[in-house]
């Protein structure tokens, strides 16, 4: 099914972006696109970003599978907003305004996002950044009206060992009627630091956008670079990237499941899952020289080969997980005090997940089935017949069960990958060329997308989209009608990245 909005995109001027052609629309056509979006709900907005001259959006037609990057020129400092038709655009439009200074005309929310009034200048990615703004004001939160409401302000410094962000709860008694999340605290100016660097040098920043997904972000960045330059990573590099990505997925899911159970005070699960997570990280260190495998994936291939004995270390670690996992799942399912906390808690509906095109365990626990390893798909996965779990319930329990299923599937994939690692080169040389590319990878959180434009081998413009952009807003919805005491459970079952969206 084509749909009215897709047809407008396909009318645009083709730009040489690989592997998916980007189309530039006139102001009139972009306005028509915004008007046509409500009639085509299956055209999912993946992300929105900008450079100094254009605003860019990445759509995926979930009915046909088409991937549609589309742009429009910035005219008089603005572009027609997407947020009236796609609520997921609201945070992204605020981010674009703060970094590039382009206004989303007719947008649903024009409050600052990343800019807290503390940088030396405004619009840091613009050609001419603006002067420093007025001294920081207390942030403005959305109004709430009703009887007997009170607010609970949490953060940016939380009580646990987690990243900083501000949560503003409005509650009636114990029940949350609204949560508003304010982020941007960990903004490091990453996109600006990557400009004018070679892809090899800039990859270190992609690897540090969100430390827990360092492998997935490095793969997406490498694939975007390779697409822009028209080169392919060697088969062995693709195999090793797959091995690293699956280790990362298992380790993160193990850590999260333990932490979710611990938030319901079930320390036994934290101890056992934490033990296996540690085993996975040690295997990663034995195989690739770094526990989180940071900088092990580079544009063009991988930084080094798997160490002698590395495969055996990985196989031993996954055998340990596999041996105990059924017992642990049984324990999880049969401790009524634990199940009482997770079942029916923090529900998000399929409709909401679809509206935000949410991927990863959050989307799949609400009935969605997308997985970047299958669609658009990238090596080494097409031959491995990846099985993607999906549950309809949308609660904390469903998000935990998605992780159990993904751990088991990743163990199967790791065995296949290690059994059949192709020989040959580890990396291909990158030519000093110009070009534009998009890369995608499935992190443990969901689909990661990177876009970049190279000018004679140097980065002219870049954007990195963490799946958390489509998950944080759903967390605001998930906690509505729940009690504040269940927020840690909801939050941990999502485990969105702060640094990943703070850029």
């Amino acid at each position, binding site marked *: 099914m084509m749909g009215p909005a897709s047809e407008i995109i396909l009318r645009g001027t083709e730009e040489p972006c690989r592997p998916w052609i980007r189309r530039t629309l006139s102001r009139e056509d972009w306005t028509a696109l915004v008007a046509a979006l409500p009639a085509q709900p299956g055209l999912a907005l993946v992300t929105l970003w900008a450079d100094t001259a254009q605003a860019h959006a990445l759509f995926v037609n979930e009915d046909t599978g088409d991937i549609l990057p589309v742009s429009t020129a910035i005219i008089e400092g603005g572009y027609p907003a997407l947020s009236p038709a796609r609520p997921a655009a609201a945070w992204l439009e605020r981010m674009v305004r703060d970094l590039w200074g382009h206004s989303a005309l007719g947008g649903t929310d024009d409050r600052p996002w990343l800019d*807290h009034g*503390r*940088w*030396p*200048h405004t619009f*840091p990615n613009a050609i001419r950044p603006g002067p420093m703004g007025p001294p920081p004001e207390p942030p403005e939160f959305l109004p709430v009206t009703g009887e007997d409401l009170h607010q609970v302000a949490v953060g*940016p*410094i939380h*009580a*646990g*060992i*987690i*990243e*900083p962000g501000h949560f503003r709860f409005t509650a009636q008694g114990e029940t949350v009627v609204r949560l508003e999340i304010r982020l*941007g*605290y*960990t*903004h*490091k*100016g*990453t996109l*600006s*630091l990557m400009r004018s660097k070679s892809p090899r040098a800039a990859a*270190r*920043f992609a690897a*540090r*956008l*969100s*430390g*827990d997904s*360092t492998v997935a972000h490095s793969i997406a960045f490498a694939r975007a670079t390779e697409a822009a330059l028209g080169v392919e990573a060697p088969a062995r590099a693709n195999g090793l990237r797959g091995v690293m990505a699956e280790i990362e997925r298992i380790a993160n899911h193990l*850590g999260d499941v333990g*932490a979710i159970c611990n938030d319901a005070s079930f320390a*036994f699960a934290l*101890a*056992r899952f*934490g*033990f296996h*997570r*540690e085993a996975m*990280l040690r295997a990663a260190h034995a195989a690739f020289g770094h*526990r*989180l495998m*940071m900088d092990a994936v580079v544009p063009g291939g991988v930084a080094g080969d798997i160490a002698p004995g590395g495969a055996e270390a990985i196989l031993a670690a996954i055998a340990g997980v596999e041996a105990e996992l059924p*017992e*642990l799942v*049984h*324990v999880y399912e*049969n401790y009524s005090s634990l199940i009482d906390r997770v079942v029916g808690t923090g529900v998000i509906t399929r409709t909401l997940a679809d509206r935000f095109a949410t991927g990863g365990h959050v989307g799949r626990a609400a009935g969605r089935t997308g997985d970047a390893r299958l669609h658009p798909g990238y090596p080494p996965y097409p031959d491995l017949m990846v099985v993607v779990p999906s549950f309809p319930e949308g609660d904390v329990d469903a998000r935990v069960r998605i992780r159990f299923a993904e751990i088991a599937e990743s163990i199967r994939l790791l065995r296949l990958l290690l059994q059949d690692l192709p020989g040959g080169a580890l990396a291909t040389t990158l030519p000093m060329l110009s070009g534009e590319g998009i890369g995608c990878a499935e992190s443990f959180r969901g689909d990661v997308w990177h876009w970049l434009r190279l000018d004679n081998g140097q980065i002219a413009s870049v954007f990195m989209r963490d799946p958390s952009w489509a998950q944080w807003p759903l967390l605001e919805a998930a906690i509505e009608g729940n009690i504040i005491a269940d927020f840690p459970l909801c939050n941990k079952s999502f485990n969105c*990245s*702060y*640094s990943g969206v703070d850029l």
Partner: protein
Amino acid sequence: MVWRRIFRTLAEGPATEPAAPIGDAATQALAAQLDAAAQTRLGRSLSIRHMDAGSCNGCELEIHALNNIVYDLERFGLRFVASPRHADVLLVTGPLSRNLREALIQTWQATPDPKWVVAMGDCAVDGGVFKGSYAIDGTGTGGIAAGVPVDLKIPGCPPTPAAILVALRTLIDANAG
């Protein structure tokens, strides 16, 4: 199932690893820096408050690992607390983003004296790869020292749990004189 595992652990011994030795020279060097009054007051038990000053969350993953049963931080008298008001040590990660500068200073002010600040990870030590960004404070040597005085640095991206453990135990030993 739970009890079966617990009995097995009782029979076979815990998964916790013996601690690596720590260097005398490092302990003495650190002891010389520390406040003698604090040594008598705090002894061999330190409460740690973690604060993220803009990290990528890689350091946080390794701090979590310290609490797992393999490293079992608490056996050394070290424990993480929920409020800076309960803390003796601030364990700070991240390059000190400008958006967190005020929060770091307030956290430091909320921590009662005597207190120590540990800069954990390359970012906290000198800004790491983010050095020179408009969004990072970067005053002086960069890192969190641009906002608060630093007593101990743990380099690494991120430092391994073993390295963090050695550094924190050095702090205890130096503190206990």
